């Protein structure tokens, strides 16, 4: 199927636009997480999204609402993921436990709770519980018009927060201590966490909580190779994320019954490898060429 046929099909177009929007937001916010050396926060967020979404599902069903409404599930995921991020940060600050340890502990606790909830739901008589397994490995084969609207709205909100607080985000990311001295302290961290949580939770159902971290980390790592300034890095990371999401679903549809999540990850990985090898300035390939040139110049002057 060529790209025009693919985009002409309503179902595929929804999926394409949805994953592209997810990649755009997670790529943009992922650049900040990467530069603050907090990439794995996205793993905490995606794992904590499971109990959040499932808890929201249970509450919705018990209240007699439609448990499949994406906006509702996202709300639960947002709250619980936000709580998980705050908890790991608080543990690291208040104790001598290192932040990576704190994140691993929090991540597993929330994920364990999510698995228990999943068991409760699949054993119980809850209407509309089909598809809750998708959170683990992702399923983007069906994104309804309402789902897409929700995804795009939340992605726009995440990017909007980043744009509005651009100055504060960039200062805090570059030099946290100086930022605090100038009066931009932990409140900026809170805003950055909120934006990242927004960007990550919208992707969990489509990409899967296990692979979602790739959409946050990989575009940023690839984009870093090509640029020396923050605005270009964030824009490029967002672009790579969107491209990886869109192209990944296209390839996965063409391959047949392959879920898009893994394909998206492989597409992003390819971009990352190409960037590492070929980007000017920092890449392995560039360094080899430069060193050869210097060596030749030395030989000629000798």
């Amino acid at each position, binding site marked *: 199927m060529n790209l025009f046929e693919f985009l002409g099909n309503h179902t595929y177009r929804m999926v394409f636009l949805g994953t592209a929007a997810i990649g755009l937001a997670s790529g943009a916010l992922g650049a900040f997480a990467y*530069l603050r*050396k907090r990439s794995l926060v996205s793993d905490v967020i995606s794992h904590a999204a499971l109990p959040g979404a499932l808890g929201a599902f249970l509450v919705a069903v018990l209240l007699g609402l439609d448990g499949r409404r994406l906006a509702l599930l996202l709300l639960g995921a947002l709250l619980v993921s936000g709580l998980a991020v705050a908890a790991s940060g608080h543990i690291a600050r208040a104790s*001598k436990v290192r932040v990576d340890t704190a994140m691993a502990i929090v991540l597993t606790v929330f994920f364990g709770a999510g698995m228990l909830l999943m068991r409760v739901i699949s054993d119980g008589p809850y209407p509309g519980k089909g598809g809750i397994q998708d959170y683990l490995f992702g399923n983007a084969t069906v994104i309804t018009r309402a789902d897409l609207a929700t995804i795009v709205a939340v992605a726009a909100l995440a990017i909007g927060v980043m744009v*509005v*607080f*651009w*100055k*504060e985000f*960039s*200062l805090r*990311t*570059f*030099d946290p*201590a*100086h930022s*605090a*001295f*100038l*009066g*931009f302290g932990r409140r900026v961290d809170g805003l950055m966490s909120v934006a990242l949580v927004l960007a990550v939770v919208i992707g969990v159902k489509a990409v899967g909580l296990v692979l979602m971290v790739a959409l946050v980390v990989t575009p940023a790592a690839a984009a*870093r190779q090509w*640029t*020396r*300034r*923050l605005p*270009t*890095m964030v824009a490029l990371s967002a672009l790579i994320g969107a491209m990886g999401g869109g192209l990944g679903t296209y390839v996965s549809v063409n391959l047949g019954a392959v879920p898009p999540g893994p394909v998206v990850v492989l597409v992003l990985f390819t971009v990352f490898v190409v960037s590492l090898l070929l980007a000017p300035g920092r890449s392995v390939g560039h360094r080899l060429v430069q060193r050869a040139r210097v060596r030749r110049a030395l030989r000629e002057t000798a």
Partner: protein
Amino acid sequence: MTETPACSVRGLSAAYGTTPVLRDVDLEVPRGVVLGVVGPNGAGKSTLLKAMLGLVPPLAGQVEFFGRPLSRVRARVGFMPQATTVDWDFPTTVRDVVTMGTYGFLGWLRRPGRVERERTGRALEQCGIADLARRQIGELSGGQRQRVFLARTLVSEPDLYLMDEPFAGVDARSQQAIVGVLHGLRQAGRTVVIVHHDLATVRDYCDHVALLNGTVVASGPVDAAFTPENVRRAYDVATADDPFLDVIG
């Protein structure tokens, strides 16, 4: 009535975790002087600056700037941390970093505009790094990095400057540039507090001195406070004829 000092510290104590670093520090910085904070490694010189600014939470004590708490006069105080504290591989240019110094008085949400661009240009000029403005910060030498931090502090044009070892790891040329800026600030009547390592140059750079070793051993005008006896106490030198004391001149 005498003018309120640029900074006054009363009974300041601070600790990293449970290890006390500063005990009961009293210090007064008169306006318009260059004050050197001098003392051996581990004396708490950097911690003193950070505790004064609230970057290390103090255990006890009060700090006032121009007679008021820091939160009320933040824009009048500038801080230059040690250059080792940031990721120099960060994708940003010299000009971007110096511009960040204007964010403090801009406050939340306001973006740097024409005025901030002009100030940034002046600060780059003053520190002799205007030609490096477009460089990625990782491409700079140690001395150039210090000058970027200095320019970032100058750009907000504060009345009081707190500088943590501005001469650390700096070559002769950068040292000269930084000294030039210091002299300029002094002539303009600004107040400067520098953490300083080199006893031999204290008399050249500083009007006042505070000898620190966990607490203030002595402070005041250089002629009165920077005596062999006080230096000996600050550095725990046992005998008065130790050749170490020759360096203070």
